[in-house]
C-alpha cells in the first residue's frame, strides 16, 4: 500500500482530534467542578442529543470493525451480534431506562443503594461496574491497535503499542478536562461521522451490485469459499455441542448485557426527566438499528468484494474487513478514490474508538469516585447527607458539603488516568483477539453482575441488602473466573497466553452459566437474609421510579 492514504488518514484523524479537543476546552471553559456537572453535564441535554450520544457510545469499534469482520469471515453466524446488540435495547427501553433515570443520580449503585444499606451495596456494584468497563475498554484498545497496524502498513509492534498508549492518553485528557459535557459532544460528533461513513459505504456496496441484495449475497457466498453454507448458521458455531452452547451463551450475553453497561446507564442521567430518557432511547434504537442493518451489508459486501481469504490474510480476526472494503470500493489501492475512502473510514473508526473509550472511562471513573471511594473513605457518612432534608430550602453550604463533591471529582479524574493505564496494559496483551468477541465477554460480565441486581431492586419487593451483594458477587466472580479458565485465556492457539494451558471451562463466553448464577445468588441471598426488606424504602423507591417524584 502507498503512503498516500496513510498520510491522508492521519490528517483526517488529527482534524478530528483537534475538533474534539476544541470542543472539550470550549464546553469546559466555565465549568464549576461540581460532581453534577462532571458526571452528568448538568442533566440538560435534549432527548435527541442524548439519543445520538447513546448511539455514539454504543456503536463501538466492535460494531464497525468487529461485526462486519465476523460476517466477512463466517457469514451468517456473525449476524448474531448485530441482532443481539439491537434486541438488547428493548430490555433497556422497557425495564431500565426510565426507572433508572428516576431513581439514581450518577451510577448504577445509586439505584440499588436507595433501597439498601448503602456501603456494602455501593462497594459491590462499584466493583462490578469497574470490572465491566475495563473489559470493554480492552476491546476498544485492541481495535485501535489493529486499525493502526493496517494504517501504517506493516505490523510494526512498536507502532501498535504506541497507538494504544496514545489513544489511552488522549481519552484521559478528554475525560479529566471535559467531564460528561465534553464526552457527550464527542459522542454526538462521532455518531454523526460514523453514520455518514457507514451510509456512504453501504450505498457504494449496493451500487456495486446495482441495488441487488440477492446478487450481493450470492457473490459473497461464492467468494467466501464456503458456498451456500456461508449464508446459513453453523460456520463459526456449528461444530460440536460446545460450539452450540457457546453460541447460545453469546446470544444470551448480548441481549442481557446492554442494560448492565455502566457507561450506557450513566447516559440516562444527562437528560432532565424519565420521559426524556425514554425518548433518547427511542432515538438511539432508530440510529443503532439502522447502523446494524448496514453493518450486515458491509460484512457481506467485504466478503463479496474483497474476499474472505484476503480479509483473513490481513487480520486473522477479521477486524480490518471494512477498511479493506473501502479501499476496494474507491477503486483499489493506489487510486485516488480508494485512498480517500480508506482514509475516511480509518479516521472514522479511530474517532469511534476514541469516543467510546472516553465514555467508558468517564463512567468507570464515576464508579470509582462516587461509589468505591465515597464508601471506603468515609464509612460512617453513609453517602447521603442528612442536611438536605432540613427546613430551609436554601441553606448556606457548609464547608463540609462543599468540599465533598470537589474531592470526589478530583478522585474521579485520577481514577480516569488509572483505569486508562490498566486498559492500555491489557489492550497490549489481548491484541490478537477479535474486537466483537471481546465485547461479547464484557457483555457477559455486565449481564451476570449488574443486570440481576438492577432488575431485582427495581421490581422485587422483598429484595434485601444481602441479596443485592450476593447477586453482584455471585454473577461477577463466576463470570470472571470462567473467562480466566476458558479457552480465551489459555490452551488454544488464539488465546491470550497460547503457551500455557490451564483452561477447564469449555465455553468461550461464560454467559450461559454466570447469568443464571447471578440471578440465583440474588434470590438465595434474599431468602437467607436475617433482616426483612425495608417496606418504607421499597415504597419510596417504587413510587420514585414510576412517577419521578423527588428525582434529581
Amino acid at each position, binding site marked *: 500500500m502507498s503512503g498516500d492514504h496513510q498520510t491522508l488518514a492521519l490528517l483526517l484523524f488529527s482534524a478530528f482530534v483537534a475538533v474534539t479537543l476544541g470542543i472539550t476546552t470550549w464546553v469546559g471553559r466555565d465549568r*464549576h467542578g*461540581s*460532581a*453534577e*456537572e462532571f458526571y452528568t453535564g*448538568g442533566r*440538560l441535554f*435534549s*432527548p*435527541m*442529543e442524548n439519543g445520538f450520544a447513546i448511539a455514539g457510545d454504543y456503536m463501538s469499534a466492535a460494531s464497525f470493525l468487529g461485526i462486519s469482520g465476523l460476517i466477512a469471515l463466517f457469514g*451468517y453466524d456473525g449476524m*448474531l451480534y448485530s*441482532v443481539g446488540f*439491537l*434486541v438488547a*435495547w*428493548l430490555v433497556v*427501553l*422497557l425495564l431500565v431506562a426510565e426507572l433508572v433515570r428516576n431513581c439514581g443520580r450518577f451510577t448504577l449503585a445509586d439505584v440499588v443503594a436507595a433501597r439498601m444499606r448503602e456501603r456494602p451495596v455501593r462497594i459491590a456494584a462499584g466493583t462490578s461496574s469497574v470490572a465491566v468497563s475495563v473489559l470493554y475498554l480492552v476491546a476498544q484498545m485492541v481495535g485501535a491497535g489493529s486499525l493502526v497496524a493496517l494504517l501504517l502498513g506493516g505490523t510494526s509492534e512498536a507502532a501498535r503499542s504506541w497507538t494504544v498508549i496514545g489513544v489511552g492518553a488522549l481519552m484521559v485528557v478528554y475525560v479529566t478536562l471535559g467531564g460528561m459535557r465534553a464526552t457527550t459532544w464527542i459522542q454526538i460528533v462521532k455518531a454523526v461521522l460514523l453514520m455518514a461513513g457507514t451510509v456512504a459505504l453501504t450505498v457504494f456496496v449496493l451500487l456495486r451490485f446495482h441495488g441487488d441484495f*440477492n446478487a450481493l*449475497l450470492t457473490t459473497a457466498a461464492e467468494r467466501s469459499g464456503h458456498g451456500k453454507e456461508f*449464508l*446459513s*448458521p453453523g460456520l463459526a458455531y*456449528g461444530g460440536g455441542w460446545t460450539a452450540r452452547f457457546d453460541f447460545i451463551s453469546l*446470544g444470551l450475553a448480548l*441481549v442481557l448485557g446492554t442494560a448492565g453497561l455502566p457507561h450506557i446507564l450513566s447516559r440516562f442521567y444527562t437528560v*432532565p*426527566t424519565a420521559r*426524556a430518557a*425514554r*425518548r433518547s432511547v427511542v432515538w438511539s434504537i*432508530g440510529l443503532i*438499528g439502522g447502523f*446494524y*442493518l448496514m453493518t*450486515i451489508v458491509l460484512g457481506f459486501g467485504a466478503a463479496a468484494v474483497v474476499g474472505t481469504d484476503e480479509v483473513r490474510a490481513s487480520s486473522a480476526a477479521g477486524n480490518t474487513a471494512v477498511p479493506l472494503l473501502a479501499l476496494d470500493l474507491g477503486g483499489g489501492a493506489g487510486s485516488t478514490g480508494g485512498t480517500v475512502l480508506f482514509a475516511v473510514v480509518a479516521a472514522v473508526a479511530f474517532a469511534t474508538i476514541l469516543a467510546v473509550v472516553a465514555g467508558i472511562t468517564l463512567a468507570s471513573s464515576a464508579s470509582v469516585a462516587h461509589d468505591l471511594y465515597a464508601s471506603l473513605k468515609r464509612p460512617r457518612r453513609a453517602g*447521603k*447527607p*442528612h442536611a*438536605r*432534608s432540613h*427546613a*430551609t*430550602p*436554601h*441553606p448556606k*453550604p457548609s464547608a463540609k458539603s462543599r468540599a465533598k463533591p*470537589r474531592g470526589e471529582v478530583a478522585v474521579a479524574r485520577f481514577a480516569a488516568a488509572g483505569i486508562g493505564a490498566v486498559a492500555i496494559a491489557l489492550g497490549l496483551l489481548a491484541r490478537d483477539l477479535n474486537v466483537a468477541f471481546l465485547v461479547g465477554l464484557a457483555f457477559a460480565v455486565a449481564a451476570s453482575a449488574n443486570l440481576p441486581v438492577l432488575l431485582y431492586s427495581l421490581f422485587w419487593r422483598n429484595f434485601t441488602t444481602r441479596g443485592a451483594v450476593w447477586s453482584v458477587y455471585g454473577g461477577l466472580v463466576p463470570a470472571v473466573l470462567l473467562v480466566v479458565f476458558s479457552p480465551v485465556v489459555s490452551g488454544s492457539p488464539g488465546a491470550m497466553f497460547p503457551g500455557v494451558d490451564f483452561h477447564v471451562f469449555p465455553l468461550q463466553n461464560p454467559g450461559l452459566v454466570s447469568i443464571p448464577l447471578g440471578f440465583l445468588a440474588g434470590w438465595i441471598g434474599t431468602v437467607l437474609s436475617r433482616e426483612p426488606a425495608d417496606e*418504607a*424504602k421499597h*415504597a419510596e423507591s417504587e*413510587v420514585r421510579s*414510576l412517577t*419521578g*417524584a*423527588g*428525582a*434529581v
Partner: protein
Amino acid sequence: MEKQEGRDAAAVRTDDPWYDALASGWGELDGTGTPTTPVAPAPVAATEHEPRAAEIYLEVQRSAAFQEVRSRYRRFVVPATLAFLAWYLAYVVAATTAPELMARPVAGAVNVAMVAGLGQFLSTFLLTWAYSRHARLHRDRDALDLRWSVFDRTRAQEQHRTREHDRTREQHGPPERRETQHRHTARAGERR
C-alpha cells in the same frame, strides 16, 4: 439557549447535588421544543430519619392512582418482555439446533435464517414504537400527577416544619414564593 440558562442556574447551586434540583432551569423548553418536567426538590429523598416523609411514599404507594399507573406499566412491559425474549431465544436456539430449517431458501439467496434475523430488527422497531406510544398515552400524565401530589405533600410538610423552626429562631424568611411560582408556570407548560 437552554444550556445557557442551565449554566446560570448551576451558578447559584450549592454544591450538594441533592439541592441542585431546586435551582435547575426547569419548565423551559428542551432542545426539541417540548416542555420538560420540572424537577421536584430533592429533600423528599432523605427519609431515613424522616418518618413522615416515608409515610407519604407509603400512602402514595397504596393509593389507587399509583396502583393503576403501576399495573398499566406492568401489564404492558411483562408480556412484551417475555414475548421478545422468547422470540429472540427461539431465533438463537433454532440457529444452532435446526440449521437445516434455517438454511431453507425463501427467495433467491435469502433463506429462513436471514428472514428471521431481519424479522428481529422489524419486531424491535415495532415494539419500540408500541411501548413509547403506550407510555405517552396511558402513563405519562398520571405519573406526573402523582409526582405533583408527592411534591405537594412534602412541600406542605416542609412548610409546617419551617414554621415551627421559625417560631424558635426567627431569622429565616421562607423563600418559597419564587419556587411556587416556578412550579405553577412549569405545570401550565407541561399540561399544555
